[in-house]
């Protein structure tokens, strides 16, 4: 499938944090032809397991690829009446950028889906001071156009609300829409699975569309516990350059993939991704995080007795809004890089990365360290 079409299907499916079923259904239909087994676990994550070509008589190592499928959304917190009309007050699911809410179109997932608008008082009704500020959740209303009795019949407190926004093509291979955080990465994992149809890989691949990353990393914690993989990669979006950003720290749209270095990243996984990029003659950028990467890697890394984990990112502008923007080339390259990295995993991988970690003279400073494969060559010399 064309990347745009994949992105369109995936971003437009409703899957707010805590109620990812709509997105999971689309992902299941896309992954089913590429994997041996599909599992939906009890906290809402969708797992696609593709077995490796390793010997059947012994257990194969496995790598877990986590891309969270939940998107930012809202939840009905109160139902209020005004002159016989019903209005909804909402609270956020995940870190919604509140400044972007006024004027959005949304869908209330009540007993049936209801289209609504997020409105507030016109600025001529506001004081000078209020005009300069974002609307608070106490002032925003979600209006589905119904009288109070009908609203009470169709909507409950706690109903999920998603944004109604179709994916649009900008110029130059860029697309904008909602939920590109993180369906862009789900798309990349889908592209990876498609590439792997043509590639021999000896490791099992556990592709996971995780639930509730935006609130608690729930799906990452639980899927890594349940599957106990030997290695893991979190695929997520990262802030891209634009006017006003700190350009020395961020990557340009179209310059991805971005490989992270930081506390959540095992140097061996960083090295394996970098080696795979070199093999493809693919340019990569380097991202850094000091403490938490803000991705599923934070949870994957500490599951069970610890899992060597990497972070692979897609640059994105206007994070946590309904006009998140990515370059489709980045999405495709992340998919291809993942497939290459997975296909290169062999029996020695875990031993090699452990050995590398134990050698203080080998550093990955500035991304110029020696690769895992060159370590073993040095050993032989």
């Amino acid at each position, binding site marked *: 499938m064309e990347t745009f079409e994949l992105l369109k299907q995936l971003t437009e499916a409703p899957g707010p944090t*805590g*109620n990812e079923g709509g997105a999971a259904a689309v992902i299941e239909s896309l992954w089913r032809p590429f994997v041996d087994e599909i599992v939906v676990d009890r906290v809402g994550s969708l797992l696609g397991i593709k077995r490796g070509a390793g010997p059947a008589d012994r257990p194969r190592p496995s790598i877990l690829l986590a891309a969270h499928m939940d998107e930012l959304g809202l939840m009905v917190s*109160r139902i209020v009446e005004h002159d016989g009309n019903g209005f909804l007050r909402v*609270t956020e699911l995940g870190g919604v950028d509140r400044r972007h809410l006024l004027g959005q179109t949304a869908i209330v997932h009540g007993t049936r889906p209801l289209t609504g608008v997020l409105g507030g008082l016109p600025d001529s009704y506001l004081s000078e001071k209020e005009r300069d500020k974002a609307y608070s959740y*106490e002032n925003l209303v979600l209006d589905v156009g119904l009288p109070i009795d009908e609203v009470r019949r169709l909507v409950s*407190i*706690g109903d999920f609300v998603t944004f109604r926004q179709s994916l649009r093509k900008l110029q130059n291979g860029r697309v904008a829409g909602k939920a590109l955080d993180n369906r862009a990465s789900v798309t990349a994992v889908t592209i990876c699975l498609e590439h792997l149809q043509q590639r021999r890989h000896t490791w099992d691949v556990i592709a996971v569309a995780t639930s509730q990353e935006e609130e608690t990393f729930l799906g990452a914690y639980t899927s890594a516990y349940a599957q106990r993989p030997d290695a893991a990669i979190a695929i997520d979006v990262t802030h891209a350059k634009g006017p006003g950003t700190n350009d020395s720290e961020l990557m340009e749209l179209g310059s991805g993939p971005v490989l992270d270095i930081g506390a959540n990243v095992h140097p061996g996984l960083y090295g394996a991704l970098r080696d795979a990029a070199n093999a493809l003659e693919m340019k990569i950028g380097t991202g850094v995080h000091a403490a938490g990467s803000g991705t599923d890697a934070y949870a994957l890394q500490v599951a069970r007795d610890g899992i060597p984990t990497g972070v692979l990112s897609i640059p994105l502008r206007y994070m946590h809004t309904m006009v998140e923007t990515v370059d489709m080339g980045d999405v495709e390259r992340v998919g291809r890089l993942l497939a290459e990295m997975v296909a290169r995993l062999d029996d020695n991988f875990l031993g090699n990365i452990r050995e590398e970690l134990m050698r203080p003279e080998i550093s990955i400073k500035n991304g110029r360290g020696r690769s895992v494969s060159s370590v073993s060559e040095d050993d032989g010399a």
Partner: protein
Amino acid sequence: MNDLIRSLVEAYGPSGFEDGVRDLIRPLIEPHADEVTVDALGNLIARKRATTGEANPLKVMIAAHMDEIGIMASHITEKGFLRFTNIGGVGSHTLLGGRVRFADGTLGIIGVDRMEDRNSIHPLNKHFIDVGATSRENCPVRVGDAAHFVRPFEARGRHLTAKSMDDRIGCAVAIEALRRLPADVSHDLYFVFSVQEEVGTRGAEAAANGIMPDVSIALDVTLTGDVPESRPMDVRLGAGPAIKVKDSGMIAHAGLVRLMRRRAEEAGIDYQLEVLEGGTTDARPMQLAGPGSVAGCISIPCRYVHTPSETVDASDVEGAVALLVTLLSADMEL
């Protein structure tokens, strides 16, 4: 039920020092459980086994926390006054003139350093406790001793007020539900009276890792929006127990929310739906434990949470017991 509630809410049990509450609860639940254990952290766990012969009964963990907020002495002055730190979420605005009691019964009065401006509240570290000592040597309290707030239980019609409704009222609901459950149940039930909830839901995290539940239900208090100028919230006293949909630490399993609503409607129990914008419960660590569990929470609406006069409505408490019993007595198709 008020006698049970009174004994629970007046007991001493700041986070980390729950022994007295545990000793109080244990004999009350032993006749109704197949097995009662205390784990390494101090969680009290009552297990009621499935008796209907199902091959793989669901493991259901129900958690109510025994601990309450309190204070801990951090320094004794030369004149025998105590400086202290908080155990859990203690607001400075709830302190002045209050009374605390230490494990050995020592009573203390909370005073405050000189106030230049009566419209501003001193931070916690400008408060002190006066236990009547005159020197460090004759002070009966040592650094590290914990105290709870003192306030007697009051029943004013349906409104019940005490210093630790959070969460002894959840413990009361769990105890009462255990008493009322039929002898034969089809799930493996683990009633956990947890420790250290107020300092980061720590007891339930360990208990859940030990039990690895399939389904988890926390019993705890929630805030209300039914007092003057309160933060808007569609939960009020007297309208029934609240079925939690979301709080700031967890989103409840949508299927479990649906099931709770259905069971409440079938049994004719009034209920409310809860979206709480600050705070969380033991349901959070239970949801995250191991491969994850189907998690939710039955909340008891409570005014003035984390003050010495936490107030609940007896009919909401009764409704919470009824909802829990009907939920646990029947199938759990999620």
